[in-house]
């Protein structure tokens, strides 16, 4: 509750309320780890149970997977640069890098939706088999998070436009940054344990 401001710290850490928001978000990320772990566990059990339906290995286009991975990896990097610019108090740089980040995120989403449509046309939908139910549940949840992240980031950019860089807006940018990096972490595991594993198996 304290409104005490410690200007020795970066903007987003200057008030106790801000520190609590950031810590709370880290704990929320802990919950997100558990949520995705559960989906990975389900995929680990069901991921090979294709019933009589198509097999994932026959459908994967590895090249597209690499493109998706690079898009998300680079967007995580550009998001890091955005935060870096924010700490240099460079609003213009912050906004530019955020826009680039969201553009890469949108590109990732486009590729993912295209991939899903490709699977659906090949007869592998969420209703086809346990394997594809768990595949779409895991990747769909991740994709939904990315979508939500883009909308949320846009809302925050509007707020920066309106209010400039204050300790409140800086905190919000920092938190969405954490969220965005986290989604990249989840993708690394999807890349490894869904795609690479699926291609090897």
């Amino acid at each position, binding site marked *: 509750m304290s409104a005490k401001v410690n200007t020795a*710290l970066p903007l987003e850490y200057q008030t106790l309320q801000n*520190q609590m928001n950031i810590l709370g978000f880290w704990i929320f990320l802990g919950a997100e780890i558990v949520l995705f772990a559960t989906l990975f566990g389900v995929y*680990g059990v069901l991921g090979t149970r294709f019933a009589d339906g198509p097999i994932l290995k026959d459908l994967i286009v590895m090249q597209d997977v690499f493109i998706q991975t690079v898009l998300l990896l680079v967007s995580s990097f550009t998001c890091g640069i955005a935060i870096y610019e924010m700490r240099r108090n460079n609003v213009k740089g912050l906004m530019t890098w955020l826009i680039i980040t969201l553009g890469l995120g949108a590109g990732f989403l486009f590729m993912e939706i295209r991939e899903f449509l490709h699977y659906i046309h090949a007869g592998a939908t969420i209703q086809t088999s346990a394997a594809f139910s768990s595949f779409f549940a895991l990747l769909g949840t991740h994709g939904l998070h990315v979508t939500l992240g883009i909308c949320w980031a846009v809302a925050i950019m509007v707020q920066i436009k309106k209010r400039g860089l204050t300790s409140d807006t800086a905190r919000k940018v920092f938190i969405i*940054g954490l969220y965005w990096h986290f989604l990249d972490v989840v993708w690394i*595991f999807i*890349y490894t*344990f869904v795609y*690479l*594993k699926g291609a090897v198996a």
Partner: protein
Amino acid sequence: MKHQTAGFPKSQIFGLILSLVMTFGAGFIALKTSLSFGVIMAIIGTLALIQAGLQLFMFMHVSEGEDGKTNIINMLYSLFCAIVIVFGTIWVMTLGTHTH
């Protein structure tokens, strides 16, 4: 935690290069080598974990600020839960039933 007011975002660029190397390295090991499935999974699984750590430290600055220690404990505990959930579920639901 210090103000980064000038200079070059070294840790971010270093992180990006490392993660790209590991991503393609994992892809290469999985797709272009003839190692056994178990060995491949062990290697690329380790690479994924290292990459996650990389994101946490180089991009997310997990240990910065006065709650840095809390964040690390939080992430380690979440990792413990994740391992229990993933491997526990797979162990209980698939491997155990083979033994009888």
